[in-house]
Each structure stands twice: as structure tokens, then as C-alpha cells.
């Protein structure tokens, strides 16, 4: 009996030692981390790819168009045959108009619904409304664009008589609806993470729920809320299909929101669908516009990142 037992133990050890898979196992153990690391490298390569393409092609563009004309020019007329003008300000103006309208729509509604969901709503209401917001966030932007063009614009034209078919107002409102779920859900997260003891303290002092929400929870969650708004702005700046369907293609450097506009993204779409020949100035111009757009959104994302890191309240 005893010897048998000993035999078994040694045989297990020998099994491990002489295992036929031992060598392959060793190789797999060493190779897998390297293989997985190379998968992780793809995302770094993507970033480098983006930055290098944009810089490289934009550099080509600035060989043909002076950088001061590009940065400070108030006219964007790339298709005017003899003397095309490439001043980016009208495109930036168009983008900012849409973004501003979107923010005016999305911020009050987004934060108000976040307050309702986190401070007033019971568990059941919250569980019904959150998935619906997720559906709203999952609607493709092309569908929103169609909605802006065929529903919101005609409706606004009834209210504002001078409104053009393509304008800044309608896509602005719809972009606002698009970014609303993002603000609501991120702000709600920030407000829900404010500890209950702070609410209870205020309630015990005789504050109403409204006062608790505005004077206690909102300030405590402010960094998270601001970060959500900044992220939403970044999304609005980069939004493409809504503005290119409902915004039009007339870059103008003014403050009019009832007239046709063009945003940075819509210009890239216009050139892409119009098939500008490879190597033409217009072809390179989409990269310079894309680069400007990239800088705008990158700065916004970094600000949001900074705010949520730097000002995170620790309870």
C-alpha cells in the first residue's frame, strides 16, 4: 500500500516534468504576452497614424496655401475656379453656431433630467428611463440628420418665416438632442456618487429636496457635470451627418443661424462625395480642415479628462 502511494506521487511529478506539452507550454507562456502587447500597440499605431496623416497632408496643403490666409481668412471659397480662397474662419463659425445651439438645448434639459433621475425619481422610474436614453444614444446620426431635414426644419419654418431649408438652427437643435443622453447619463453618475450622508445632513437641517439638489448635490458633483458637458461639446463639434444633411454648404463668417451654413465636418463630406482628384489643393484641404477639427476635439477631450481628474471630490 505504502509503496503504491509513493509511486503515485513520484509519477505525478514525473508526469509534470516529462510532460510532452512542457516545451510548447513554455513557448506559449512567453509568446502570449508579446502577442497581446502587439494587439495593444495597434491602438497606439492608430493614434500615430491619425496624427501623421493629418500633419503630413496638411503640410502639403500649406505648401500651396499660406498658413496666415488659412488661419485668419474670412472667406472659404475652394471651388471658385481661378482664385480659390481657403480661410477656415467661416467653417469654424458654422461649427461653433451648431455647437452653441446644441449646448443651449442639451445642457439645461440634460442636467434637469439628471437631477430628476438622481434626486427625485424612484428606482422603478430610473430603471425605465435609463434604457430609453440608451436607445436615444444608439440612434445612428444619419437618422437624426433625416429627422432634422424632414421634420424639425419644416416645423421651425412654421414658427420662423424667414428660415431657409438649410440653416444652423435645425441641425443645432437635433445635435443637442443627440448629445443629451450623454450629458444626462454622465451627470447622473456624478450626482449619484455624492454620498447620501450629505443629503441627509441637509434634509435634517430642514432643506427641501430642491434645495438639497441645487445647494448640496450639484456643487458636490460639479466637476463631473462640467466634464460631461465638455465631452458632449466635443461630440457636437465632431458630429458629421446631421450637419451635412440639414446645415447646407454655404460657409459664412457671421452670426446668422437662420441661413445656410457649412461646418468643418460637412465640408469634408462635401469634398469626399464630390470626388476631388487626388493631389489637388482641394484634396489636401480636407486634411487641413480635419486637422483643425482634430485639434478642437482633442483639446476638449483633454480639458474634460483634466477636470474629472483634477477636481474629483473625494468623500
Amino acid at each position: 500500500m505504502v509503496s503504491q502511494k509513493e509511486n503515485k506521487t513520484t509519477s505525478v511529478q514525473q508526469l509534470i516534468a516529462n510532460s510532452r506539452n512542457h516545451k510548447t507550454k513554455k513557448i506559449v507562456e512567453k509568446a502570449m504576452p508579446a502577442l497581446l502587447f502587439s494587439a495593444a500597440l495597434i491602438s497606439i499605431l492608430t493614434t500615430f497614424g491619425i496624427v501623421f496623416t493629418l500633419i503630413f497632408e496638411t503640410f502639403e496643403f500649406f505648401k500651396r496655401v499660406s498658413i496666415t490666409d488659412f488661419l485668419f481668412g474670412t472667406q472659404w471659397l475652394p471651388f471658385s475656379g481661378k482664385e480659390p480662397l481657403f480661410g477656415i474662419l467661416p467653417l469654424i463659425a458654422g461649427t461653433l453656431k451648431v455647437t452653441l445651439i446644441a449646448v443651449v438645448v442639451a445642457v439645461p434639459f440634460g442636467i434637469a433630467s439628471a437631477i430628476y433621475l438622481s434626486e427625485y425619481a424612484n428606482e422603478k422610474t430610473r430603471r425605465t428611463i435609463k434604457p430609453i436614453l440608451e436607445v436615444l444614444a444608439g440612434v445612428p446620426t444619419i437618422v437624426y440628420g433625416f429627422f432634422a431635414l424632414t421634420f424639425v426644419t419644416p416645423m421651425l419654418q412654421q414658427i420662423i418665416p424667414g428660415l431657409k431649408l438649410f440653416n444652423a438652427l435645425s441641425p443645432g437643435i437635433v445635435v443637442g438632442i443627440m448629445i443629451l443622453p450623454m450629458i444626462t447619463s454622465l451627470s447622473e453618475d456624478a450626482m449619484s456618487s455624492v454620498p447620501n450622508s450629505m443629503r441627509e445632513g441637509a434634509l435634517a437641517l430642514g432643506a427641501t429636496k430642491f434645495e438639497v439638489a441645487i445647494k448640496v448635490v450639484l456643487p458636490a458633483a460639479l466637476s463631473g457635470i462640467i466634464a460631461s458637458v465638455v465631452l458632449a461639446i466635443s461630440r457636437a463639434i465632431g458630429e458629421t451627418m446631421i450637419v451635412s444633411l440639414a446645415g447646407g454648404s454655404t460657409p459664412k463668417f457671421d452670426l446668422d443661424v437662420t441661413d445656410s451654413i457649412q461646418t468643418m465636418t460637412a465640408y469634408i463630406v462635401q469634398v469626399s462625395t464630390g470626388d476631388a482628384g487626388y493631389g489637388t489643393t482641394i484634396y489636401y484641404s480636407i486634411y487641413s480642415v480635419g486637422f483643425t477639427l482634430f485639434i478642437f476635439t482633442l483639446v476638449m477631450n483633454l480639458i474634460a479628462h483634466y477636470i474629472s481628474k483634477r477636481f474629483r471630490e473625494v468623500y
Partner: protein
Amino acid sequence: MRYIDDSVVMKRMTKRITFNKVWKTLFFLATTFALVMLAILLYRIVTQGIDYLNFNFLTNFASRFADKAGIKAALVGSLWLMGVVAPVSIILGVGTAIYLEEYAKKNRLNDFIRMNISNLAGVPSIVFGLLGLTIFVRMMELGKSILAAGFTMSLLILPVIIVAAQEAIRAVPSEQREASYGMGATKWQTILRVVLPAAIPGILTGSILALSRAIGETAPLVVIGIPVILQFLPDNLLSQFTALPMQIYDWAKRPQEAFQYVAAAGILVLMTVLLLMNSIAIFIRNKFQKRY
């Protein structure tokens, strides 16, 4: 002697209590705004599109005439596109997530990878289109093919899949890993046979949601220059193709009113595909989600 005069307290409180009630209603109305918008949007599209949505619409190719226009090429093209995007993005995404969660030590390089992924998630999709146009279409000379568009879309949704997979892997309790090591398993055996199986529901849910985003994404396809009016189906990965959102975009911007209804019918098809994918994701989440 009474310290508190009830009538004064009530007088002062009434205003604040009414205030609370009024604002509660306002906050609630703001919440319903989003719901009302979603309802209007869906109602509009269903009423506009339902009459055009029939069997012929699904089996016809694109046409200059609204009553003959169909969505066959786009529907098949979108399926081909998913055939590239799903394996590429899931393999790369899950691989990256395993590396970051199981292998990556805390050092500068890995911190950089993490920050880089969160920044990539904030890059507008149209910029990915410019990347795809330069790298895949022109430099690699893949042309306006399924492969070029598929790679572009994969990179676009990669950050979403990585984050979802990271969360799923992190949710596997470390006791399970320790038990596996205790049995003499190696690190990779533990990952492959213990961690991944436990994390798969979460990974799948996140991946399907990311893929449904890729199906609806239009901007990168436009920039790459995917054609719209095709009278044939793709037969290999280097074929030209068109996709659902491209087709819808083309119909939506046509001036003839009839095409609005065709576009709405196309949107109905797209939304049906999306809802189908979302319900599969929710099903997986509910059925397989374990709580430790």
C-alpha cells in the same frame, strides 16, 4: 412658553415647499423631453417608411426611380462589412484588454497606452475616415473595398470594445485566478480557461453594442468614398460595396420628395437590424451575467 411659532414656520416653509414642487415638475418635464423626441422620431419614420417597406424593397437594387429603389446591395454590403469588422475588432480589442488587465505592469508605456485609448474614443469618426482613406485606400492600395472600410470601422470601435472587455475581465474575482494557479495552471492557461470563459458574456455584450454602432456609422464610409448606386453584390473582400447608412444618406439628400419615403424605409431596415442586435446584447447580459 413656546419656542417655535408654527404659523410663522408654515408661512416661511410654504413658499419653499411650493418651489420644490414646481421644480420637481419642471425636472420631470425635462426628462420627458428626450422621451417625447424619441417617440416623435420613431413615429415619423414608421409612418413615412412603412408603405415602402415590402419584399421588393428588400430584393431590389438601387434605382433612379423611387418606386423601384431597393436596399439589397446595401443590406448585403453591411453584412459583409460586419464580417470584417467583427473578427478584427473583437480579436484586437479583447487581446488589448487581456494585456492591460492581466500582463501590463504599472509603467509609463502602459499608462500611455491607457490614456491613448481613452483619447482615441474621443476622436470624431470622420477623422477615422481620413485615416482610412490615406492608409488603407491609398497607401495599402486596398481601394474602396470591404477590407479598407472594415479596417477603418474596426479601428473606430476598438476603444469601445477594449473598455467593455477590460470591465468584464476586471469583474472576474481574483479568487478564481488564485484557485487556478493553485491547481498548477500556468498564467496563460488560467486566462484562457478561467478568466475568459467567465468574462465572455460581458465581452459579447459590449462587442455587440460596439458593432451596432459600426453598422449605423456613416461619416468614415463617406470619406473613404464608398459608392452608392451598385447593381451587383460583392463577391470577395476586395469588392466594391455599399452599406445601409450610405444608401440612406444618398436617398435622404435627393431633392425629389418620393425619395424621403424610400429613405425612411431604409431607416426602418437599419433600425430593425440595430434593435435586433441590441436585444441580443440585452439577452446575453441578462441570461449569462453572474454575480460573484
